[in-house]
């Protein structure tokens, strides 16, 4: 019964979405306020219906209702509760429902909280959102229905891929989707502005919080995915330039550019056409990410069962939205007025450079991701484009960007003074140089580029500190004055500096791990020891253990450092009974110097085990940096100025009343 309710709600939602797509546009076109006003309740109702469908599916999972095909394929009675819940989106059909749930949640938020938006803009935005919902609901209902029944119902399910039964991965897809789908808001606002043929600084002020929230979710989602790959896949790496990783990274790069260009538009009323274009590009890349992952074009840990009908359907959705948006852009963009002149050396200029480098770096990743697909389609040759390609192309472009990042916030709007900015950054540059020299002096091995990379990370960190110090006039004003300024500084300024500092941490983490990682692969018999990075590992043997839905062989290691005990590590191999699948569970000892990472391999002939041990220096900084960037975004989001209308509501109301009185 619950599955049928969900199915019914899904189809009703499709009908409501069609209403939401069509009527408001007619209403704004013929100036019919009643038709226009339908957008708001339609968006709210649609969210409620999708939520009903989503919770119906979740109920089927939680109660292990194996008469539902989707539950039978992806769940099992013995699975822990957390993974029964995360199993809802751990498969193709359920993940598409989650996608639409987040989409309609954002739509309902605009309908409910966007009361200060101009009616026409709000209606058009909701209509565009409705059209996206129509496309994806049609996709779900026709090709990916999660509510199909099985008769007779099997006794137990087939289980869930064991590598996915992990807490970090339970929350990775929702954040990633919130990011992808969040950019649909920027897209809808962009298309609505094009339909209107009108755009102003207030538009950017409405778009920025949505973009920022989406960017935060995507940052966290990517960090979680990288963190999971690090400890779960057993290779000790944090990023593989896998096409599916790239699919989430490209919207992030474009979204980061959008965040910065919207800033220029909000503050200076410039770069309008570019910001609109960037909003379209960012969501197009999100759609492409969905396509690459969901269509089965790529085979990886993310690929679902290959079903050509699905791939073609998503390709059609992509074609309609991307093609339609670009056509609309070409037609209407010339109508948008340009404003806000600025000199090349200025805050605007630095943000243009930021956008240029980010989009070009994004394009390089795009080429590397799509080239093998294109080549195979055209010539049949199979190639793989791996890390060397991306290091060579993405690397230099992003390094160029990182070098100029600290200058941006120190330049004034309209016309900046590069020399003054350089003088303020002198201290940061000197410290970064000293760190570079110290690293070079103590470096025993590793590439000569590594000290430069560490220096770059320190430069970013101190650049962010300099930015804040400069704004509060830490030096050159009385201490009380600095404190007063620090308290009055807008939160967005702190948020931006935090995000840049987080970037510095990520750079240091990546460089240190890549350059100075130690790796040993040995055959160890019980009682033997292995030395790595100053640690001694004593292998005590292997013992069997029983988990909730798996059997495990656990390796026992005693770790000492200079004779004194440090910890005990227990890497294991898990054999999942229902899924007939094994996974490798690494064991990690965390210290301030880095991670000691142990993986248990196969048993060899003479009773020994192959054992893989890594020492990854400072690797935690990568995810710590991601978290800092996330919090930076949050601090910026809490800025009062970003809550549109909060300080202006009274004035705006007075104006509306004046207009009404005048009519």
């Amino acid at each position, binding site marked *: 019964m619950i599955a049928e309710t969900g199915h019914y709600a899904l189809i009703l939602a499709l009908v409501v979405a069609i209403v939401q797509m069509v009527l408001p546009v007619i209403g704004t076109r013929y100036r019919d306020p009643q038709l226009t006003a339908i957008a708001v309740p339609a968006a709210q109702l649609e969210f409620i219906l999708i939520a009903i469908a989503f919770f119906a599916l979740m109920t089927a999972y939680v109660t292990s209702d194996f008469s539902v*095909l989707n539950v039978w*394929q*992806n769940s099992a009675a013995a699975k822990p509760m957390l993974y029964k819940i995360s199993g809802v*989106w*751990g*498969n193709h059909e359920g993940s598409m429902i989650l996608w639409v749930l987040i989409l309609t949640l954002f739509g309902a938020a605009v309908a409910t909280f966007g009361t200060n938006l101009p009616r026409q803009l709000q209606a058009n935005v909701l209509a565009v959102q409705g059209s996206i919902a129509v496309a994806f609901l049609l996709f779900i209902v026709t090709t990916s229905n999660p509510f199909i029944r099985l008769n007779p119902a099997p006794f137990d399910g*087939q*289980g*869930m*891929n064991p*590598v*996915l039964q992990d807490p970090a*991965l339970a929350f990775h*897809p929702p954040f990633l989707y919130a990011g992808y789908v969040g950019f649909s808001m920027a897209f809808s606002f962009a298309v609505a502005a094009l339909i209107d043929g009108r755009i102003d600084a207030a538009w950017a002020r409405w778009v920025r919080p949505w973009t920022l929230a989406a960017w935060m979710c995507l940052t966290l989602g990517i960090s979680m995915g990288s963190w999971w790959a690090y400890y779960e*896949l*057993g290779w000790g790496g944090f990023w593989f330039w896998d096409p599916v990783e790239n699919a989430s990274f490209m919207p992030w790069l474009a979204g980061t550019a959008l965040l910065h260009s919207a800033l220029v538009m909000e503050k200076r009323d410039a770069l309008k056409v570019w910001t609109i274009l960037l909003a379209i590009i960012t969501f197009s890349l999100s759609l492409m990410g969905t396509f690459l992952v969901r269509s089965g074009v790529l*085979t*990886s*840990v*993310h*690929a*679902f*069962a290959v079903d050509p009908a699905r791939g073609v359907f998503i390709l059609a959705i992509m074609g309609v939205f991307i093609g339609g948006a670009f056509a609309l852009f070409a037609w209407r963009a010339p109508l948008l007025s340009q404003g806000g002149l600025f000199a*090349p050396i200025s805050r605007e200029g630095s943000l243009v*450079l930021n956008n*240029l*480098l980010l989009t*070009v*770096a994004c394009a*390089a990743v795009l080429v*590397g991701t799509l*080239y093998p697909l294109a080549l195979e389609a055209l010539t049949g*040759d*199979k*190639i*793989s*484009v*791996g890390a*060397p*390609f991306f290091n*060579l*192309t993405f690397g*230099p*472009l992003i390094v160029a960007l990182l070098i100029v990042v600290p200058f941006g916030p120190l330049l004034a709007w309209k016309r900046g003074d590069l020399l003054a900015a350089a003088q303020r950054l002198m201290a940061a540059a000197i410290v970064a140089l000293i760190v570079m020299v110290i690293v070079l002096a103590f470096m025993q091995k590793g590439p000569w580029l590594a000290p430069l990379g560490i220096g770059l990370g320190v430069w970013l960190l101190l650049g962010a500190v300099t930015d804040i110090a400069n704004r509060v006039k830490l030096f050159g004003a009385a201490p009380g004055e600095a404190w007063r300024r620090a308290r009055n500084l807008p939160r967005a300024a702190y948020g931006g500096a935090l995000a840049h500092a987080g970037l510095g941490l990520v750079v240091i983490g990546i460089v240190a791990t890549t350059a100075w990682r130690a790796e040993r*692969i*040995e*055959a160890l018999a019980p009682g033997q020891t292995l030395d790595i990075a100053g640690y001694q590992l004593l292998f005590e043997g292997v013992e069997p253990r029983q988990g909730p839905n798996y059997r495990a062989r656990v390796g026992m290691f005693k770790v000492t450092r200079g004779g004194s005990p440090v910890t005990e590590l227990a890497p294991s*191999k898990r054999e999942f009974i229902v*899924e*007939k*699948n094994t*996974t*490798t569970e690494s064991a990690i000892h965390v210290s301030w110097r880095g991670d000691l990472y142990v*993986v248990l*391999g*196969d048993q*060899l002939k003479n009773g020994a085990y*192959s*054992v*893989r041990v890594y020492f990854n220096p400072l690797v935690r900084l990568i995810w710590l940096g991601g978290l800092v960037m996330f919090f930076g975004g949050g601090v910026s989001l809490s800025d009062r100025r970003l809550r549109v209308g909060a300080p202006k509501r009274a004035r705006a109301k007075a104006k509306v009343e004046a207009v009404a009185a005048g009519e």
Partner: protein
Amino acid sequence: MTRKQRRGVLIGTSLVVLGLAVGLVLYAMSDSIVFFYSPSDLTAMQAAPGKRFRLGGLVEKGSVVRDQGTTVRFIVTDGAKTLPVTYTGVLPDLFREGQGVVAEGTLEPDGVFHADNVLAKHDEKYMPPEVAAKLKKQGVWRGEASAPSPNATN
């Protein structure tokens, strides 16, 4: 600065960055792309020793030999031709005889493929698409398991 000059600076910078990116991409394309071959492809053409590529096929039944330490030798077959492979390290969880495998490394003058990376696979029915395509061409493709798709993943 006049409006024209400002625009010139903007366009000039864009062109420099774009040119740099195109140059980098082209250079990387010629140098750091890894091709995928089956054992039959290799006998048809002479692979230069030391050139990296990916080798795909099935692990021949009964061919896996563990040497001293963690070195493993096995034979990759595509039904028509075979190639011996040696690899030092921990094999992925789902490395099994008779199953598909992709190894990355170089073909040395001794005629043995020295792999430094054997690709991890994510379930027992998974076959790298390159391997499936080549096997289909060689006629040894046994078709996909007819059971409903296993663990769809994310």
